[in-house]
């Protein structure tokens, strides 16, 4: 592979570097705080590799959530990746052996960067692969750094887990600004709060996620019926 392509791919990946390193360091520190050493963080980052859900998984692991809750939350939080993959059906199929790697490394950020690449086919394939590869490296390096850092820091980092809340609030605002239809977001807040009151802290996630996704499926399917009239 040519040097220029590597340099170009690295430049494209700099925004990802900045966000991944810091978020994954926070992840590693949170894992360490919850009692999981750096190699546990590395293992999760290596196998699961999905930003926001990895944070939720920490609290699931330490609270001993049921496998069903883990599965459903993973399914609903990461279902957006399915829609990203759709965009790249043709490109990834043309990439031969690299296809599986490209599928595994699809994230919000690599989607955004690779989607905007405007290059001839061969160079685009190499660049997409390198962006995916580099991003995954940043994420794993940060996870390990965070774990080691969390171990070395003498003070107890009480409240560091708030960075997960902050991340979600920011994603929520981003999504809110991108659309005029706020019903899904408001339904999520309402149903989430309602289920919290009804089922309590330990048990409300499953009914809340089921309730909100059921309502949305109902609304969208209803929308289709309405259109075809």
């Amino acid at each position, binding site marked *: 592979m040519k040097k220029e392509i590597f340099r170009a791919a690295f430049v494209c990946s700099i925004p990802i570097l900045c966000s991944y390193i810091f978020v994954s360091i926070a992840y590693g520190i949170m894992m360490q705080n919850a009692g999981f050493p750096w190699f546990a963080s590395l293992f999760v980052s290596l196998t699961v590799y999905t930003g926001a859900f990895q944070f*939720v998984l920490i609290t699931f692991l330490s609270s001993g959530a049921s496998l069903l809750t883990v599965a459903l939350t993973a399914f*609903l939080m990461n*279902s957006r990746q399915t829609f990203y993959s759709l965009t790249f059906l043709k490109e990834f199929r043309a990439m031969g052996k690299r296809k599986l790697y490209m599928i595994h490394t699809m994230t919000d950020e690599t989607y955004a960067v690779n989607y905007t690449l405007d290059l001839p086919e061969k160079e685009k394939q190499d660049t997409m692969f390198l962006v995916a590869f580099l991003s995954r490296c940043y994420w794993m390096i940060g996870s390990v750094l965070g774990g080691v850092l969390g171990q070395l820091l003498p003070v107890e980092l009480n409240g560091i887990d*708030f960075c997960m*809340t902050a991340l979600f609030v920011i994603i929520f605002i981003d999504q809110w600004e991108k659309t005029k239809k706020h019903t*899904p977001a408001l339904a*999520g807040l309402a149903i989430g709060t309602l289920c919290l009151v009804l089922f309590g802290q330990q048990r409300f*996630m499953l009914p809340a996620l089921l309730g909100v996704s059921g309502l949305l499926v109902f609304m969208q399917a209803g929308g289709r019926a309405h259109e075809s009239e």
Partner: protein
Amino acid sequence: MSLNEFLPPVLLAAAITFFLRALPFLIFHGEKRMPGWLERLGQALPSAIMAVLIVYCLKDAGTDLRGVALPQFLAVGVVAVTYKWKHQTLFSIAAGTLVYMILLANL
């Protein structure tokens, strides 16, 4: 925590995540298109799920009004205001978390 408690959830989550990323390659051969309602669901679902997750993050607020609720809601306010103002993800995460940690230690 033992390996028996750690591995099953992690591997399950990894398998589901990979499956979701690979799903379109399993379903769509050639030029087949997604049905419209599924496409709209794909646009509506993420913000609803994120809203539930925010409730999840703030779930302890109801039981401990002074100790947790006040710092949490103030810090969420800091994140929202700074993000609306600058649109700098890292800055808002750092500001909110710092405010939360300080409030938690001092209230």
